[in-house]
């Protein structure tokens, strides 16, 4: 029997990026805010110190900073006619647990989506007549780029993003990304210093008529003090960003941008090792009364609150909605319901280049250090006759030379033995790669629901993921990979290997932690779980943050847009909801 606690104005479920932003914004509005985090407290000097964070085995291969499947996982299958089985080890994606969430172990690649990305359905139908696949459930977001622009700006200045504007108030800027939406001002910091390989990529791309630009990075190109007065240090290019936390206060995260201010506020409280099991509802089912959580000692508590905001990892928000009865569960056969609908991911491929005469020294790196081209992203190119919509960026990154993970060998090299050893030794310092980072559209039979067999540690049904790449994504990824190979050829390597995306989606090899959808935002409650302000259509005092609200996944990394949407929702809560609690959009 849960014991009942004194009420709070706001409960934040999880304490990563989105919860830290909301905590800061809503305590500023005078509210009493409580964050419940299932993992522990962790911070730079104690948990990520530069004296021991550069440990590839401990942090990546032994999963030190990530969620543990022993405690929470999901089941997975490629198609509805298969039996889903548990993801017993982490692989394809790396969800987090603990303060700061997955935002502590990201690379820092911080993009804005294209204006047309937010109009994916109407824009593509207008330009091409119809969508290429009848099973596509691609939708408009219900919010526009122009509406989000001030919020992108706030997030970029919070983080101290290093980059070069390509479009200032409609004026194209040489050296920046010419395809980006208009921005109100330049990035807060100049681009990072460029290592060798990305300059080779940029030169070759330019020769082919593309417009390469330094990719936007949450790695500091110089010391930075953000608008909250929190200071970050200059990046030291140690090459341990993604899968690691930064020991040098050089990568934006909740810890390095917000927590020193938020944690000291009198109207903010954080409880760690407290996992929310359910959002509690009143007897109408239209209002949340608070949450039920369990602490590390196994005690259950009822925490009443006026507003409940789901800030857990993308699919965990969806799981909690399904377990709590917030919104109608999606049924792909009947094509009804919304919660679990429109799950998407990312599709990636690469080209490896090997040189005899060029030392690339990729161990000198940073998570978002690279040059990119955006000619083949979104609808930046004519898709007429191609048979797919969407696209992605191509980039030559120098993220790392961590040798367990990064020791590429040319095609035809054995996987072990003396020849393998020689190939690794010969190529390690003289290689680079071009990666493609592609969009994944949403489809009727890619979705999340509750598993009929497997249960989590609390006895609740696990979340079940049904997902595979469709023809649209495969054609698109092949197209991007061909374009990457053209640039690679112009970089004149001794040899190269083109790694196209083949076979079904697999949960085994790491790809990206860009899981999206399941609680899609939109303008129509029949096809979206939350409205344009990330407010539940069905339970208006519940808001849902993070990439769970993406109706499909554009060809960029998601964090920039997650940050912008969080500020957008915080603004709506502060300036509209608090004055008149209730639905912010009439269905």
């Amino acid at each position, binding site marked *: 029997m849960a014991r009942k606690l004194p009420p709070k104005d706001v409960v934040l479920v999880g304490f990563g990026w989105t919860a830290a932003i909301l905590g800061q914004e809503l305590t500023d509005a005078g509210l009493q805010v409580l964050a419940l985090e299932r993992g522990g407290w962790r911070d730079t000097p*104690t948990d990520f110190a530069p004296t021991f964070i550069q440990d590839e*085995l401990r942090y990546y291969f032994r999963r030190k900073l990530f969620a543990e499947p*022993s405690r929470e996982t999901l089941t997975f299958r490629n198609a509805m006619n298969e039996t889903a089985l548990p993801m017993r080890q982490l692989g394809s994606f790396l969800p987090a647990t603990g303060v700061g969430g997955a935002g502590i172990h990201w690379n820092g690649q911080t993009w804005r989506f294209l204006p047309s990305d937010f109009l994916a359905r109407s824009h593509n139908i207008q330009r091409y007549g119809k969508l290429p696949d009848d099973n596509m459930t691609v939708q408009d977001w219900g919010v526009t780029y122009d509406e989000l622009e001030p919020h992108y700006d706030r997030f970029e200045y919070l983080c101290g993003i290093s980059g070069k504007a390509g479009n200032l108030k409609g004026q194209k800027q040489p050296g920046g990304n010419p395809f980006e939406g208009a921005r109100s001002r330049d990035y807060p910091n100049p681009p990072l210093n460029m290592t060798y390989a990305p300059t080779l990529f940029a030169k070759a791309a330019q020769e082919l008529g593309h417009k390469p630009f330094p990719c936007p990075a949450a790695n500091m190109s110089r010391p930075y003090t953000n608008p909250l007065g929190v200071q970050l240090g200059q990046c030291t290019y*140690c090459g341990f960003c993604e899968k690691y936390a930064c*020991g040098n206060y050089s990568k934006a995260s909740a810890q390095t941008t917000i927590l020193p201010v938020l944690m000291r506020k009198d109207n903010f409280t954080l409880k*760690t*090792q407290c996992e929310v099991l359910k959002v509690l509802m009143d007897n109408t089912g239209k209002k949340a009364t608070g949450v039920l959580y369990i602490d590390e000692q196994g005690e259950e508590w009822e925490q009443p609150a006026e507003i409940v905001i789901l800030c857990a990892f993308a699919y965990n928000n969806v799981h909690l909605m399904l377990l709590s009865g917030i919104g109608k569960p999606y049924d792909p056969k009947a094509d009804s319901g919304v919660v679990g609908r429109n799950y998407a991911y990312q599709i990636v491929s690469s080209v490896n280049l090997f040189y005899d005469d060029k*030392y690339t020294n990729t161990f000198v790196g940073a998570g978002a250090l690279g040059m990119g081209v955006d000619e083949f992203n979104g609808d930046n190119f004519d898709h007429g006759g191609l048979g797919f919509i969407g696209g992605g960026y191509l980039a030559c990154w120098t993220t790392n*030379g961590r040798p367990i993970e990064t020791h590429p060998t040319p095609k035809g090299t054995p996987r072990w033995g003396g020849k393998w050893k020689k190939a690794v*030794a010969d190529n390690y310092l003289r290689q680079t790669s071009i990666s493609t980072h592609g969009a994944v559209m949403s489809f009727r039979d890619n979705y999340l629901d509750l598993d009929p067999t497997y249960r989590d540690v609390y006895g609740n049904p696990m979340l079940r993921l049904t997902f595979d790449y469709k023809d649209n994504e495969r054609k698109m990824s092949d197209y991007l990979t061909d374009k990457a190979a053209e640039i690679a050829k112009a970089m004149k390597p001794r040899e190269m290997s083109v790694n196209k995306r083949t076979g079904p989606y697999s949960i085994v090899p790491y790809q990206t932690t860009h899981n999206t959808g399941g609680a899609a935002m939109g303008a129509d409650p029949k096809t979206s779980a939350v409205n344009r302000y990330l407010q539940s259509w069905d339970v208006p005092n519940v808001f849902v943050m993070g990439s769970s609200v993406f109706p499909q996944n554009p060809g960029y990394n998601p964090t920039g847009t997650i940050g912008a949407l969080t500020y957008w929702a915080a603004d709506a809560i502060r300036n509209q909801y608090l004055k008149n609690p209730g639905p912010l959009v009439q269905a």
Partner: protein
Amino acid sequence: MRKAKENAMSSTGLSRRTLLAAGAVSAAGAALTAAPQPAEARTYHGEMPWSPSAADAPVPVEPGPYEFFTPDEAAFIEAAVSRIIPKDDLGPGAKEAAVPTFLDRQMAGEYGRAERWYMLGPWRAGTKSQGYQSRLTPAQLYRAAIKAIDEHLKQANGKIFAQLSPDEQDKVLGDLDNDKIKLTNVSGKAFFELLLQNTIEGFFSDPIHGGNRDMAGWKLIGFPGARYDYRPYVDKHNQKLDLPPVSIQGRPGWNPKT
């Protein structure tokens, strides 16, 4: 001393609930580690939590006799990793770089017990894209597969793996890699995949974990190790830097001989 350190680590790294969930509190597990202390739920209000000297530092592996492998298993492992990464004119191989010690300590620890994996049933064979669906932990897989391979070889020609010539060993490893050897109750292919991955881990991970002795793996390829600051080198395009490797515990030039 090592035991005390291990216990200190497990009390911060893992909760009892996690272990219970994984079904990992078995007799075998209990024999290797004391019951961990539960991490208590905590409330933070009006403070930026910080405790001096509370860093979550790694526990160095100490060299010494095998803790997990039996003599027969050790003979197999030493022979197998010598073929996966052989000693040659480029330098030490996996055996010389102490990869067997690394593997031993990994199997004896939380990884060997699959403490972070979901290890509850129902168990079914899945598709390739659904990943690992065996009920064996890494330690159990090593133990069962080594025994089964040696029995298989002994039946065929009277010799166990460690007694074969290097060429014959390469043939056996290749057959395991290509899933051509069918063993009783265990997948030779699954074992080979794990052994290959773990051998590479032991060859290239920080020496603090027991392998990569003298940073042999890093010296082979030119990786400078756990360095913190490369700012002076970002602009040195197309230059061979030749930076001597540094481990988390420093490097020989820094540490006085004791």
